C-alpha cells in the first residue's frame, strides 16, 4: 500500500527536530532506554493514522494525545508539534508528502492532494495495527480467550461483527433477567389461589371439582372442564336470588392468608437468611470502600450511552471538539476499565436475588391479607401493614437498582427487621377474623367462588405475562445462539488460514527446536482459544510451558500471520517496537531471515535497545548500509543525539569553542569507541574476545586500523596476481594516504607513549586538542567511500573474505589472488 521514504519530526514527544531517511527500505532505530526511539514510533503512527496508541486506550489514565503529544516545552503550542513524511504509493506510482500537527490531529495535509492518493491514505489511517509493541504482542498471546478475541477481531477489523454478537447476547440476557420477578408473581398467584380454594394441587380437574362442590350448595349448574375463559362463579348473581350481600371477610381464606404471611415473615427473619445476608453485605461494603471502583460502577452506563452518541467530532455532552476516533478510544478505554468492575457487580447481584425474591413474597402476602382487611366491619387499622408494604416495595427497587450503594447497604442491613407494630396489627386482625361468626354454608360457598375467581384471574394474568416473556426470552436466546454459531463457523475459516500461516512462520523461527510445531486457534461464542503444541506432549496455552522468548516469537508470528491475512499484498509497512526483547540471538537471526524472505514487500521499521540485534539485522541483510540510526543519548532541550559523524564533530567544535576540552574529549572518545566497534565489525577485524562485550577504545581502534591496512595489502597482492596495474596503483595511493592519516592520529603510538594516549586527552589545552580532533576526523574519513560516504565492509560477512567494498560499489577491491 505504502513505503515510507523519510520522516521529519518537529516538537513531538521527546523530539525537537529529527529527520530520518528510510529510502523505502527496512530501517532500525537503536539506542539505550530513554534516547527517543519510542518518540519516532509514535511520530510514525501519528502521521499515518492521526493517533498514538501509547497515549490512548486502556490504562492510559489522564494521558492524552493533544495534551501530551507535543514536546513538553511546546505543550501550549500544539501546532508546532508536527510530523511530515514522504510516502511512496507503489500502486499509483506516486510519491506524496503528508503532514499532521497536534492542533488538528485528524486533519491530514496531502501534497499533491489527488483523490486516489487520499483514498489510499484513508485506508492506511484505519490501520493503527501497523505499529506493534511488545505490550500489544503479549495481548495476542497471553490474554484470556475473551480478551484475545476482542484484540484479534479489532486487528482484523471484525469488531463490528463482534459488537452485533454482544448486543444480541445482551438483549437475550436482559429478557432472561425479566423472568424471575414474573415467575415470583405467577407462583405467588398460584399459591394465593391454592390457599383460597384449599386444594393441595393446582390442576384444572381439582379446581372444577372443588368449584362444583361450592356451586352445588348454591344450586348452580356444574362446570364442565374449564378453559381460560371459564368463570368459577358463572351464574352466581342470577341463580342466587338473594339480595346482594355486603362484602364480608371470608373467614377461612383470610385465616389461611394471615397464617401464610406470618410464615413468610418468619422466613425473612430466620437466622440462615441472616448469615447469607451478612456474607453478601461484607462484599458490598468492600466495594463501597473502593471509591474508584464505585465511581466506575456509577459511570459505566453513562460511558456506554456516551459511546453510542459519539457520532460527530464533538463530545455529545459538552460539545467540545474532539477527534472522533480519539473520543471513541477515550470512552472505550473507560468502559474497558469498568468491565472487571461490572463483572464484580453482576456476581453480587446474583447473590442478592434470593433476598429480592423473599421480599416480593412478603409484598404479595401482605397484599393478600390487606385485600381481606379492607372488607372488615367495623373497619380495622392497617396503616402499619400498608406502610410496611410500601416500604418493602421500595426495598426491592433499591436492591435491584444497586446504586446508590450506601442505600443498598442500609436496606440490606434492615432487611430482617419487621416492625413490631406490623406484627401487632397482623395479630389484631387475626384475632378479629377468628372472632367472626362462622358463615352459613351458602355464604361460605359464595365467598369461596368469589375469591377463587378473583385469584384465578390474577393467576391467569400472571401466567400470560410470564408466557409472553418466556417466549421473547427463548426467541432472543435462540437468535443469539444462531448468530454466535454462524459467526464461529465463518470465523473458523478465517482463523484456520491464519493458524496454518502462523504455524509455518513460527516453525521457520524455531526450526531448530520446534520444526513440527502446531497450533489451534478456535473461535467460540465471542472467545478465541489459542493453544499450542508443546513438543508433541499435547496442546496448552502459550504461557503454560513455553519460555518468554518463545512467547515473543509466537506473538510476532501471530501478528504477521494476521496482518498477512488482513492486508494480503497491501501489507507493505509495519513498525515493530522492541518486540523481541526476550528472544535469544539465534532465534533473532531466524526472525531476520523470516522478515527478509517471507515479507520481501513489507518495509519494517524496528526499534531495539540492543546493538547486537542491530548488527544481526545488518549481517543478515535485513538492513542495508544506511538503514539504521543509533541514538546515543537524549536530553529534554535537544531530543535524541545520533552517533552520526557530522553531528559529533559539530558538537565537539561547539565544546571547544567554549573551551570545554574535557567534554569534547569525552565525546570524541565515546564516538571513537562506537565507530571503532562498527569498523571492526564491518572489516571483520580480530579483537581479543570478551564475553561481556565491553571492549575498550585501545583494543578496537588499533585493531580496525591494522585490519584495514592488512585488507589493502591483501587486495594489492591479489591485484598483483591478476596483473591489474591500475588497481595496484590505486591501492598503493590509498595505502599511502591511509598511512599518513594513521600517523597523524598517533593511534599506533598509544601503547608506547602515555602522553598521546586517549586517556590524556582531557588534560590537554584547547590548542593541543584541536589537532587531535582533526586527525581523528580525517582518519575516520579514511574508512569511508568518498562517493557514497559509507564505511567500507568486507563481504561476505562470514567464511573467506572475498572483497573490500562500499555500499555504492565505487570501491570494490578483490581479496582473492589468482590460483
Amino acid at each position: 500500500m505504502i513505503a515510507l521514504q523519510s520522516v521529519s519530526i518537529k516538537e513531538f514527544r521527546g523530539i525537537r527536530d529529527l529527520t530520518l531517511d528510510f529510502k523505502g527500505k527496512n530501517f532500525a532505530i537503536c539506542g539505550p532506554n530513554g534516547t527517543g526511539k519510542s518518540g519516532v514510533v509514535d511520530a510514525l503512527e501519528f502521521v499515518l493514522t492521526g493517533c498514538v496508541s501509547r497515549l490512548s486506550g486502556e490504562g492510559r489514565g489522564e494521558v492524552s494525545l493533544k495534551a501530551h503529544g507535543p514536546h513538553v516545552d511546546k505543550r501550549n503550542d500544539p501546532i508546532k508539534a508536527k510530523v511530515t513524511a514522504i510516502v511512496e504509493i507503489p500502486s499509483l506510482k506516486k510519491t506524496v508528502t503528508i503532514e499532521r500537527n497536534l492542533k488538528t490531529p485528524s486533519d491530514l495535509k496531502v501534497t499533491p492532494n489527488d483523490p486516489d492518493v487520499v483514498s489510499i491514505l484513508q485506508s492506511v489511517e484505519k490501520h493503527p495495527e501497523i505499529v506493534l509493541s511488545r505490550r500489544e504482542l503479549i495481548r495476542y498471546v497471553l490474554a484470556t480467550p475473551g480478551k484475545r478475541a476482542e484484540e484479534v477481531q479489532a486487528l482484523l477489523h471484525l469488531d463490528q461483527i463482534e459488537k452485533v454478537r454482544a448486543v444480541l447476547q445482551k438483549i437475550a440476557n436482559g429478557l432472561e433477567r425479566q423472568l424471575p420477578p414474573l415467575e415470583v408473581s405467577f407462583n405467588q398467584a398460584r399459591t394465593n389461589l391454592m390457599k383460597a380454594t384449599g386444594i393441595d394441587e393446582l390442576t384444572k380437574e381439582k379446581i372444577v371439582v372443588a368449584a362444583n362442590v361450592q356451586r352445588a350448595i348454591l344450586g348452580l349448574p356444574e362446570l364442565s372442564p374449564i378453559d381460560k375463559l371459564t368463570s368459577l362463579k358463572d351464574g352466581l348473581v342470577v341463580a342466587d336470588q338473594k339480595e346482594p350481600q355486603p362484602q364480608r371477610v371470608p373467614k377461612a381464606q383470610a385465616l389461611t392468608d394471615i397464617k401464610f404471611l406470618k410464615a413468610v415473615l418468619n422466613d425473612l427473619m430466620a437466622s440462615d437468611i441472616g448469615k447469607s445476608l451478612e456474607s453478601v453485605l461484607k462484599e458490598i461494603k468492600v466495594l463501597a470502600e473502593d471509591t474508584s471502583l464505585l465511581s466506575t460502577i456509577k459511570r459505566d452506563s453513562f460511558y456506554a450511552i456516551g459511546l453510542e452518541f459519539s457520532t460527530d467530532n464533538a463530545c455529545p455532552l459538552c460539545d467540545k471538539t474532539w477527534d472522533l476516533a480519539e473520543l471513541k478510544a477515550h470512552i472505550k478505554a473507560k468502559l474497558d476499565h469498568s468491565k472487571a468492575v461490572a463483572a464484580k457487580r453482576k456476581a453480587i447481584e446474583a447473590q442478592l436475588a434470593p433476598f429480592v425474591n423473599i421480599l416480593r413474597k412478603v409484598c404479595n402476602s401482605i397484599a393478600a391479607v390487606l385485600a381481606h382487611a379492607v372488607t372488615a366491619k367495623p373497619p380495622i387499622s392497617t396503616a402499619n401493614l400498608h406502610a410496611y408494604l410500601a416500604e418493602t416495595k421500595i426495598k426491592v427497587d433499591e436492591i435491584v437498582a444497586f446504586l446508590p450503594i450506601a442505600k443498598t447497604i442500609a436496606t440490606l442491613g434492615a432487611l430482617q427487621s419487621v416492625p413490631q407494630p406490623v406484627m401487632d396489627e397482623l395479630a389484631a386482625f387475626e384475632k378479629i377474623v377468628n372472632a367472626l361468626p362462622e358463615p352459613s354454608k351458602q355464604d361460605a360457598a359464595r365467598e369461596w367462588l368469589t375469591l377463587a375467581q378473583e385469584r384465578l384471574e390474577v393467576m391467569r394474568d400472571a401466567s400470560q405475562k410470564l408466557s409472553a416473556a418466556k417466549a421473547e426470552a427463548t426467541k432472543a436466546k435462540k437468535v443469539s445462539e444462531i448468530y454466535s454459531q454462524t459467526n464461529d463457523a465463518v470465523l473458523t475459516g478465517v482463523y484456520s488460514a491464519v493458524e496454518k500461516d502462523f504455524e509455518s512462520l513460527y516453525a521457520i523461527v524455531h526450526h531448530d527446536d520446534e520444526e513440527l510445531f502446531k497450533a489451534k486457534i478456535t473461535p467460540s461464542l465471542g472467545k478465541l482459544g489459542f493453544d499450542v503444541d508443546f513438543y508433541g506432549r499435547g496442546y496448552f496455552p502459550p504461557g503454560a510451558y513455553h519460555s518468554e522468548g518463545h512467547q515473543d516469537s509466537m506473538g510476532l508470528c501471530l501478528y504477521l500471520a494476521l496482518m498477512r491475512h488482513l492486508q494480503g499484498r497491501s501489507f507493505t509497512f509495519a513498525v515493530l517496537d522492541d518486540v523481541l526483547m526476550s528472544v535469544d540471538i539465534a532465534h533473532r537471526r531466524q526472525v531476520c531471515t523470516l522478515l527478509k524472505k517471507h515479507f520481501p514487500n513489507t518495509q519494517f521499521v524496528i526499534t531495539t535497545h540492543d546493538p547486537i540485534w542491530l548488527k544481526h539485522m545488518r549481517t543478515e541483510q535485513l538492513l542495508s548500509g544506511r538503514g539504521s540510526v543509533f541514538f546515543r543519548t537524549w536530553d529534554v532541550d535537544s531530543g535524541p543525539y545520533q552517533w552520526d559523524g557530522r553531528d559529533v564533530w559539530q558538537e565537539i567544535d561547539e565544546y571547544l569553542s567554549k573551551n570545554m576540552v574535557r567534554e569534547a574529549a569525552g565525546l570524541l572518545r565515546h564516538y571513537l569507541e562506537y565507530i571503532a566497534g562498527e569498523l571492526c565489525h564491518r572489516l571483520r577485524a580480530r579483537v581479543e574476545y570478551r564475553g561481556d562485550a565491553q571492549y575498550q577504545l585501545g583494543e578496537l581502534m588499533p585493531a580496525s586500523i591494522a585490519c584495514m591496512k592488512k585488507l589493502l595489502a591483501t587486495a594489492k597482492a591479489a591485484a598483483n596476481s591478476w596483473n591489474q596495474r591500475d588497481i595496484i596503483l590505486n591501492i598503493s595511493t590509498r595505502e599511502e594516504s591511509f598511512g599518513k592519516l594513521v600517523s597523524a592520529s598517533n593511534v599506533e603510538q598509544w601503547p608506547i607513549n602515555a602522553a598521546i594516549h586517549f586517556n590524556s586527552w582531557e588534560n590537554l589545552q584547547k590548542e593541543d586538542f584541536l589537532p587531535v580532533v582533526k586527525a581523528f576526523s580525517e582518519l575516520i574519513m579514511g574508512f569511508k567511500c568518498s562517493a557514497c560516504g559509507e564505511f567500507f565492509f568486507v563481504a561476505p560477512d562470514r567464511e573467506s573474505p572475498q572483497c573490500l567494498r562500499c555500499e555504492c560499489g565505487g570501491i570494490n577491491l578483490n581479496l582473492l589472488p589468482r590460483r
Partner: protein
Amino acid sequence: MDTSQDADQLAIQVYQKFIENLSAANMPSAMVERLKKVLLEDKKYTEQVLKDALLKEDAAL
C-alpha cells in the same frame, strides 16, 4: 486490495449466513425480514434497533 472492504465483506458474509440460518431454524419470518433489513440494508447495530427488530411484532400483539 482494500483491506477495510475485506472486513466489511466478511461482516456481510456473517450477516447473510445468519439470516439464512434463522430461516432454516424456522424463526418467525417477519422477524427474520426485520433483522435482514437492519443488518444488511440499514446497517444499524445499536441495541435498541436490534431489540425492535427482534420483538417489535410481539410487542404490537
